[in-house]
């Protein structure tokens, strides 16, 4: 079993493009996305290989259990694969894919109508500077946010996106993201009795 860090500031999901060697050629994400768009299945596979940890992290952040997270990953990869030809600009592959992933995660939550419990998950997690009780409180508080606010918190604090990147990803104005973030932070403070 491999342990990965949840917090990975921009080197993962949006990340500075990793590159690959394929058939002696050196390909970056944009080139791979362009090839995938033209029907190169291997290129699509490489893109997923590059992003698999980040993909899983985001999915897991929504549902907090392995089975549901894998279902979301599966659905997002499938949807991206069958629609990659429709991607308008390979430059935005990562943004485009993350949007699919978030939609799949939110749909999954809506479909199952169940609040994933963080509690059992925290049991197995490594330490760090935050106590386990504190983690449980934070997890529960994040869980109680609505899907839109939760998405912003996950992307910003667990995945390290900037506000501008989140706005781009969610296709909404920067001001809206800031407002939602403030609202989410206020909610969290109230729930954690910091006001």
């Amino acid at each position, binding site marked *: 079993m491999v342990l990965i860090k*949840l917090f990975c500031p921009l080197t993962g999901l949006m990340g500075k493009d990793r590159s690959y060697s394929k058939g002696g050629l050196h390909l970056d994400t944009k080139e791979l996305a362009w090839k995938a768009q033209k029907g190169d299945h291997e290129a699509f596979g490489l893109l*997923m290989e590059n992003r698999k940890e980040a993909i899983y992290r985001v999915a897991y952040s929504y549902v907090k259990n392995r089975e549901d997270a894998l279902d979301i990953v*599966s659905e997002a990869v499938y949807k991206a694969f069958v629609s990659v030809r429709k991607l308008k600009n390979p430059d935005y592959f990562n943004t485009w894919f993350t949007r699919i992933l978030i939609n799949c995660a939110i749909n999954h939550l809506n479909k199952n109508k169940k609040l994933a419990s963080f509690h059992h998950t925290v049991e*197995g*997690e490594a330490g*760090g500077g*935050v106590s386990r009780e504190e983690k449980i409180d934070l997890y529960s508080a994040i869980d109680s946010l609505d899907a839109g606010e939760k998405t912003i918190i996950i992307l910003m604090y*667990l995945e390290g996106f900037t506000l501008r990147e989140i706005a781009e990803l969610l296709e909404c104005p920067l001001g809206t993201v800031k407002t939602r973030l403030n609202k989410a*932070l206020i909610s969290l403070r109230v729930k954690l009795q910091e006001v």
Partner: protein
Amino acid sequence: MSDRLKDFGKSVDIELPEDLDGVIYRAIERGKLDMRRKKSRVRAFKGAMCAVFLLAAVFAAGVNTVPAFAEAMEGIQGLAGIVRVLQFDRDRAAGGELTDGQDIGAVDWEKGGEEESILVSLLAEGSPAGLPGSFEVLKEQYPGRLVLKLHGVRGISADITAPENSEYVEDIYRLVTLDDSSQRLVVSFKKAVDYQVAEVEDPAGILLTIKPAAAESLPELFSLRTPSLEFGEQVGVWEEVLTWEYGGKDVRQLKDSQGTFFVEEGLYESEGEALDRLGELQEMGLDFPLMVEKVDGLYSREYMGQ
């Protein structure tokens, strides 16, 4: 709060499952299979379209209104999968063969010149079926729409969405059907249209060909309807109760402008008539809300809350 969240983010580790690669690999393989199926459907769709256009041209020669001619056209061989073009008796047409266990595998929309087509493809045990199961097509107004009742169809694996650039089709959606051996699909229209419905074989499908028609003037009517609800069992229950317990003759489900669903008990010529019927239903013990909505034949119905 912000710092606390940052520390929290940094401190959380999760285990990466060993079968993550396998899940991704299987998702890609599922995508490949789906794309192969889609390609095969597109080929069948195009073949069927050619046949329909050919038939339409023959009909346009002046014999399309003669039912005997239509009957004679049934079963013509060599017309790329078209078994027959259905003839409407008043507002109902029927086709297909009695079968069970089919699944709606895809609903594809295509535009060709002034005409648009929708192909409903049917699967049996995960593969394209040979012939469509028994089905009915009902024409309705307020708003203009076609309802496809597919018997022996137990599932919908297709991702059903409204076409984005259609001139005629407002929406394609399913209705809540409490009978698990059938499914219902609706094609609703933005404007007055003419359509032709054909039964397609190998692979099995139902092909709707839609073209423009002269706008018709419809009188204002009064609908007796439930509030709007999210798609779900309750909508189906209301429909069944109004039909079977209260003897409603024209009970149907509709989707409103906000994407929620409601049940209509009937359309009445005056508000008074609708209110009389409401009183009658309440006297009979109706225990859920019904209200009167004025409808003018426009191609959209309004959301109404409780």
